[in-house]
């Protein structure tokens, strides 16, 4: 089913994993996984709870070191690169980031310039420009001086996305960016991500819980089950009744969305 043969030296791959094995303590979550992410695409990692989708994302973002195998960023092994250099090419928004009290939106987003400006942090003109642009893209310019703990959940999530945008990286990894948001804020965040992909050609990989959102916003869906890739391709190819039964243990109808013909799954019973 894997239509993306593994080849780390392929220059089209913005990010690639080769025979990646990842685990926590005794538990091996991902035994051996290879994949390639093409430049300028949106890829959604989906799968049931405990399938290893967040773990894979964390390994791709070098937040956890793999047991074996390697991650390649633009064809170079990520573990061999200085971490600040990686941060200039790849930004990651972890799941449910802890919000420091008393920090303002502007102060948070400013930290996105750390990989460019360095530890002593005299912000230059291009840093200020990147911060303002990140705030503008996430529609946060007016909230710049507000404290994070005074924002709504959706605004706070946008602030964290703005932090990743200020990093100005070609690759952006997001771990469940829509969790805890109501439906309109979920769409707002995903639409923003889609715009970033379309207008700036950012390569985006995101973990999503909601299959229909993944089908709507991602060009490619990778389905994980017990640490393995069990389906990989366009939402239309991936989202099948068989897959939902095998991987998610639900019976479902797959219909076309009346608005745009994208696949939508309607689960109605567990197996």
């Amino acid at each position, binding site marked *: 089913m894997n239509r993306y043969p593994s080849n780390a030296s392929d220059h089209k791959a913005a990010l690639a994993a080769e025979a990646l094995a990842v685990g926590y303590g005794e538990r091996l979550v991902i035994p051996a996984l290879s994949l390639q992410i093409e430049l300028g695409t949106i890829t959604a990692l989906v799968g049931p709870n405990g399938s290893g989708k967040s773990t894979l994302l964390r390994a791709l*973002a070098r937040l956890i070191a793999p047991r074996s195998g390697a991650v390649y960023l633009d064809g170079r092994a990520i573990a061999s690169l200085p971490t600040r250099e990686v941060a200039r090419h790849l930004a990651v928004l972890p799941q449910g*980031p802890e919000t420091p009290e008393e920090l303002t939106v502007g102060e948070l987003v400013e930290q996105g310039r750390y990989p460019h400006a360095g530890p002593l*942090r005299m912000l230059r003109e291009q840093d200020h420009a990147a911060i303002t642009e990140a705030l503008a893209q996430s529609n946060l310019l007016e909230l710049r001086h507000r404290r994070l703990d005074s924002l709504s959940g959706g605004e706070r999530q946008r602030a964290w996305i703005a932090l990743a945008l200020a990093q100005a990286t070609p690759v952006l990894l997001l771990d469940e960016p829509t969790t805890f948001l109501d439906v309109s804020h979920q769409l707002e965040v995903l639409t923003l991500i889609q715009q970033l992909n379309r207008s700036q050609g950012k390569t985006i990989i995101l973990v999503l819980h909601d299959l229909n959102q993944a089908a709507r916003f991602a060009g490619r869906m990778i389905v994980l089950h017990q640490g393995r890739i069990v389906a990989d391709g366009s939402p239309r190819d991936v989202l099948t009744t068989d897959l939902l039964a095998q991987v998610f243990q639900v019976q479902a109808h797959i219909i076309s969305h009346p608005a745009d013909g994208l696949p939508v799954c309607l689960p109605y019973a567990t197996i």
Partner: protein
Amino acid sequence: MMQRIAVRYYRPLILLSLLVLFLLVVLHVAAGSVVISPFDVIAALFNRPVAPYERIIVWDLRLPRALIALVAGAMFGLAGAILQSIMRNPLAEPEMTGATSGAVLFAVLWLSEAGRQLDQPGLLLPFVALPGGLAGGCLVYLLGGAGKSATSRLVLTGVLISAVLRSATSIILLLRQEALGAVLLWLIGSLNGRVWPHWDVLWPWAIVALPSGLACAGLANVLQLGDASATGLGLRVGWTRLSLFFIATLLTAGAVAVVGGITFLGLIAPHIARRVVGADARRLFPFSMLMGAGILLAADTITQTIAQPVTIPVGAALVLLGAPYFLFLIWRRST
């Protein structure tokens, strides 16, 4: 609201704070058993002609004490701000580094053995307490920070090591009660009898540790976003946290060695500073430092003034003021 104003007018705020600190130094020097007019103090400080006895009191007796209060307070304030930032815990304080209890244990050990033969053990005390503070800090650092360090592990190790060192101190004091008298004031934290030799122990540390701490503000800012985000931003999280912890230990050990086991200052000063200037470490660190200096100077001036001729150790006064504030913090966080 207050925070926004303070951020917009940060530079004037710092200048104003420096002016207030200067006035506090003047008042501190003016206060005491012989009260000197603040104008005479300023005149004496700037080498204008004043009565010879006033000049001696200002330069030889009181100025070193005021400078020590200023700098030690700044060190406690900055150490507390650094620890609260890196532990991501508003209740972290310098004692957590193990430096305070380590310094106290060494001082008590030395006083109960070698020191009691000396006429003025107070003068040599800082030289003994300093390595003790560093040893206590290193112990916490090695046990809590070796390899991959989790924040909670460092905090718990610090609390545990401090408790162990304090109980060892208690046992020694019980066995050697005659040492208690000499060390009691120092245990509580006091500026009584601080003279130029003490200042000479303090300033070299301050000159190294204060700028190092301030220079790390940018790193602390990234670190307080949490380990995952900080790693994503290209920060070497474990290494950075240990470096900042080490700087906080240096600050604490240096200050404790000279003024004794003052607690609460490193907790309160950063807290007030955070209320005023917010959590951005590039403003929080310098302002906590100024806050710590101001509070210690003011507290010492008050203890010298209200209770003449008895001198209350400033450490006790700070705890009396600090404990209710601490309770208030806990109460506010839980509601």
